[in-house]
């Protein structure tokens, strides 16, 4: 392997995770930080740290020119974007290529193809992967025809543009025409196109995602699946591998679908193909592809024993995959809980501040991915993630128990954390039996708030 130096274009636990992977590969690291993160744990661990700009992400972590300039001028050969920030920006991948840096991620054209939801959907359909039933409609009559074929309830929304604008659930035909007209006029006003997308509204779905990995030599494998149904406002809270609720046939089908999409693109990096599994109807539809390392990657690492960040770096350096499909096996079960600095008693309000005590307990089979330390000033500028607590056991029950023991034993003082919520969730029968679906936690919160508990 040629000598490499990696620029880490991220912060927090994932920056630390990337630095650690580089250290073990014997690769030097340079970390770009904001002024607020100059004393962070990753800043202390990196080979070299460069201040990119002010605390606001727009001035530092999202400042493309400063990031690429720092990487080039500090003699780096590759840039790892982590997740979030610049990780899915095609122009960053392109700028890296123009400046002789290996972007640790997919090719720019793959980021473009996957970033546009309509083109990603077309790609899936072109290789026979089912997408949520639905399509674009140009008139209320057309919408009525389509909705009859799909079955109610349906979701109507603007076909172009995003942000959930004008999205509306329609339960029966009587309500469709009015909802369609409204969505169409809103779409025309906001995006200059009155086309309305009508799709099936899935009430009880599980979020299941397949980890894929490809190299530049045309080899691609899957690393089984994860379930991440426990979400709050589209933020995942608890993730696990493998997905306990899948019949074997469906599991195999998902792996096959994920590889079909990766093969169709010639995907040569680490990525995740997300699906919704309708537990009521037992069918599957493609959601999107996340072309980067994901927050929940450690559960897959725990059950497969494969260091995903290491593999991601190596394939970006042009190395061939060191593992073939037959060698990937699942050992036991792993569950991750995301501990955040948020106040569950106040609608998950962020709670930054000084961490006056931080003592994670030593528990066998538990991994802590965290950039916390005693005395750390948790900054208010970024996301609220404090730690990912990942428990691995021979089966799901033992993994759950290890996770409970780890969270209970944590000594933490300073910012409010979601520990109490996590512990409560881990004892909830629906979670213990794995019958939760993506909207469960929000419904539960809604009930909680209506019941008039402290808000």
């Amino acid at each position, binding site marked *: 392997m040629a000598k490499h130096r990696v620029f880490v274009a991220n912060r927090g636990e994932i920056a630390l995770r990337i630095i650690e992977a580089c250290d073990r590969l014997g690769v030097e690291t340079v970390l770009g930080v904001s002024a607020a993160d100059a004393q962070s744990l990753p800043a202390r661990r990196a*080979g*070299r*740290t460069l*201040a990119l700009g*002010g605390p606001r992400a727009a001035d530092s972590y999202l400042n493309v020119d*400063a990031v690429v*300039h720092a990487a080039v001028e500090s003699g780096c050969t590759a840039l790892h974007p982590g997740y979030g920030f610049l990780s899915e920006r095609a122009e960053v991948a392109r700028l890296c290529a123009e400046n002789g840096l290996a972007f640790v991620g997919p090719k720019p054209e793959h980021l473009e193809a996957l970033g546009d939801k309509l083109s990603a959907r077309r790609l899936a359909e072109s290789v026979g992967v089912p997408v949520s039933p639905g399509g674009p409609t140009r008139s209320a009559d057309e919408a009525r025809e389509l909705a009859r074929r799909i079955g109610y309830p349906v979701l109507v929304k603007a076909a172009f543009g995003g942000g959930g604008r004008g999205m509306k659930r329609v339960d029966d035909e009587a309500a469709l025409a009015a909802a369609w007209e409204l969505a169409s006029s809103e779409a025309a006003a906001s995006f200059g196109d009155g086309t309305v997308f009508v799709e099936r509204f899935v009430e009880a779905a599980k979020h299941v995602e397949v980890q894929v990995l490809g190299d530049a030599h045309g080899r691609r494998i899957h690393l089984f699946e994860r379930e991440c149904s426990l979400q709050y406002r589209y933020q995942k809270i608890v993730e696990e591998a493998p997905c306990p609720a899948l019949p074997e046939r469906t599991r195999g089908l998902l792996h096959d679908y994920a590889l079909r999409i990766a093969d169709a693109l010639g995907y040569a990096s680490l990525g995740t193909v997300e699906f919704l599994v309708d537990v009521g109807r037992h069918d599957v539809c493609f959601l999107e592809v996340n072309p980067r390392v994901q927050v929940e990657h450690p559960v897959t690492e725990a059950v497969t024993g494969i260091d995903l960040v290491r593999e991601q770096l190596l394939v970006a350096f042009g190395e061939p995959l060191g593992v073939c499909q037959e060698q990937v096996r699942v050992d036991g079960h792993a569950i991750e809980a995301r501990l955040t600095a948020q106040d569950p008693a106040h609608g998950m309000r962020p709670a930054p501040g000084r961490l006056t005590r931080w003592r994670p307990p030593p528990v066998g089979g538990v991994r802590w991915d965290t950039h916390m330390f005693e005395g750390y000033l948790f900054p208010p500028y970024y996301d609220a993630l404090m730690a990912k607590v990942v428990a691995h056991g021979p089966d799901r029950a033992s993994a759950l128990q290890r996770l409970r023991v780890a969270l209970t034993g944590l000594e933490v003082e300073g910012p409010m954390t979601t520990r109490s919520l996590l512990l409560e969730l881990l004892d909830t029968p629906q979670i213990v039996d794995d019958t939760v679906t993506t909207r469960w936690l929000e419904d539960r919160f809604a009930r909680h708030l209506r019941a008039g508990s402290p808000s």
Partner: protein
Amino acid sequence: MDIDFEQLAAMVELLKSAEFTEFRYQKGDVCIVVRRGELPAAAAPAPTAAAMPAPAPVVVVESAPRAASTAAAATAAQAATALPEGCETVTAPLLGTFYARPKPGEPAFVKIGDRVDADAVLCIVEVMKLMNSVHAGVSGVIAAVHAQDGQLVEFGQPLFSIVPDAR
């Protein structure tokens, strides 16, 4: 760290006749870097080392890469502590490459002892081919220049010290 000087001498002897610009040797925690020509500065077009009559190789002995880079980081931080007292500090408004002169070969914008106005341009910080002028912000006399031409400077790094005019 222990260095076998005989081995080192033999190596340098071998390198004398070899064509190279940089030679890096690492064993355990010892890292030896031998460069021909000037130390690489991100500065304006320097003549390539290969084109020049072979000068004596420059030998730099570094400790392990981790330690070396930590030292480099510490140097940047220490610059802040060594600032002269009673001076206003002009810091880098953004990360980039520091240029003391408008163009290569031209005189520097300012030198120590120069009197400047608040709106005087002191240097350029280049980010991805974008030139950003840095202004004095205060009128006074330049007391120190903390960065070198062509050096990568970080956000907030001290660039100049100015003794402000008495009001």
